[in-house]
């Protein structure tokens, strides 16, 4: 079983977001980067599959060398090897083409992505990869059980969940539920030491178009100051919700 876990390198969840170059770029100054939280659930699930059925877990990222520490962290958590495709990941289609090319070359059985990256919230790469490969796709995936090459997949649908079957290979866009929060693996000292000697291969990007360009960044309008209402006068709140906010 060869598993590929796609890792996106994103600002820590507590980051303040600012823009640079006259609002044409995301300002990375002072920002701490982490493994995309959704990908962490997928990575732990991949390690569980390996421990149960045998195989290898490779992590991959399309990015410049600034993402190497993120890949090293994934190695410290337990991935066997890492591949970085050396390019700026500015367009989802371009990124998906890189991952699809890697999959075709190395022949993975299972590609695990997160449902979306918490920076641009695109939610595009996993579906594009699946479509490029013509593999079955499931997202947002909250459960994945394998019995050999037979997969049972749970995904969220609006107001419920759907349970499906598929035969590997498949691509999933995962989230919490693949494993629980308490099960997430974190790097221990031994993991960090061995990560230093695990392979992190850098390869050039394949040719692919960029179908979109981010042209301008901005921030949402700040909220006006809160209107505080006395706890003994909740009728006032109901009135404001009806007359002012017009939501009830």
């Amino acid at each position, binding site marked *: 079983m060869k598993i590929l876990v796609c890792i996106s390198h994103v*600002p820590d*969840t*507590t980051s303040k977001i600012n*823009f640079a170059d006259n609002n044409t770029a*995301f300002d990375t100054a002072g920002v701490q980067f982490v493994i995309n939280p*959704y990908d962490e659930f997928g990575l732990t699930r991949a390690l569980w599959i390996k421990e149960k059925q045998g195989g290898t877990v490779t992590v991959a990222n399309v990015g410049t060398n600034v993402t190497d520490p993120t890949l090293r962290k994934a190695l410290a958590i337990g991935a066997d090897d890492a591949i970085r495709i050396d390019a700026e990941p500015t367009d*989802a*289609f371009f990124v998906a083409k890189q991952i699809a090319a890697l999959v075709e070359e190395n022949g993975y059985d299972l590609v695990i992505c997160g449902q979306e990256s*918490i920076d641009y*919230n695109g939610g*595009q790469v*996993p*579906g*594009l990869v*699946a*479509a490029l490969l*013509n593999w*079955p*796709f*499931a*997202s947002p995936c909250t459960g994945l059980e394998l019995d050999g090459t037979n997969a049972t997949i749970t*995904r*969220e*649908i*609006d*107001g*419920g*969940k*759907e*349970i*499906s*079957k*598929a035969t590997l290979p498949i691509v999933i866009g995962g989230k*919490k*539920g693949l494993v*629980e929060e308490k099960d997430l693996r974190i790097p221990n000292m031994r993991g960090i030491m061995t990560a230093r000697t695990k392979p992190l291969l850098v390869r050039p990007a394949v040719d692919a178009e960029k*179908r*979109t*360009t*981010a*042209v*301008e*960044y901005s*921030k*949402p309008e700040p*909220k006006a100051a*809160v*209107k*505080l*209402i*006395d*706890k003994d006068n*909740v*009728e006032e*709140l*109901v009135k404001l919700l*009806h007359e002012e*906010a017009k*939501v*009830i």
Partner: protein
Amino acid sequence: MSVLIYAESWEGKFKKATFEAVSYGARVAASMGTNAIAVTIGDAEDASILGKYGASKTIHVGGVSTFNNAAYASIINQVAANQDANTIIVAATNNGKMIAPFLAVQAEAALITNAIALPSSTAPLTVLRSAFSSKGLVKYQSNADKNVICIVPNAIGVATIEADGTAEESSVSADASLKAIAPEKVERVSGKIALPEAELVVSAGRGMKAPENWNIIQELADLLGAATACSKPVSDIGWRPHSEHVGQTGIQINPNLYIAIGISGAIQHLAGVSASKTIVVVNSDPEAPFFKAADYGIVGDAFEVVPKLTAAIKAFKANN
């Protein structure tokens, strides 16, 4: 040329997000000087009702029963080709989000997701989208001739017009070589309002102290016809189901009203709810960070304030 909208239905009924997508598509079509055409797959109610939202014609493709994202994309793309549509609009429901990337790959189109506004230009197509978990907005420009736009439910709103649409049957069938997962079972949380499309949401956090205290939250939600949500720790410790977890790592929502009870307002929580149009916070700590992100706030004990609020809304409803 035309604009095609995928009109998603659930158990034979169009979703609210569909009406929104059709209204959006109609306005995009108008700005391009062309028609908006809707396509619906599988069980559907009278398709001509989409005329009210601006679809000049709705094409129904029958003979498909279970959801299959690859097959649906193949059908939608064939209809798009038949109707000469270079722009396809999809609502970002859980199924819509699985169809959109397949549409883009099959049609060699650009894909713009998370759209929250009408295009600011149609040539090249330029659309404002939400990013950084609602902490930022980014204008995306397409570099392709064909485009798929995936719009965030409840961000743009539904617009109705005085018009009739026509309905038409089509017999296109999906490319059989496409692979997809095979749904075997759907477990619908019955009788409850789905969080991603809810207009009103009542949410509670660790301030509720224990799961058995949620009855006052449920009561308020039921009275309002609201969906219920919760903070992450509450779902992690199992007080509430994962499907209710909102925030940066949970579901991102933008209802018209979000009532947050006993939730501190951590940055990761706000990332999933700050796009809500009106935010009400009930918290016993006047220093709770959530008050900075709220429109209305009550400093007080939830166990005292929530029943009072429920009673006041009941009285209001009785008089209105």
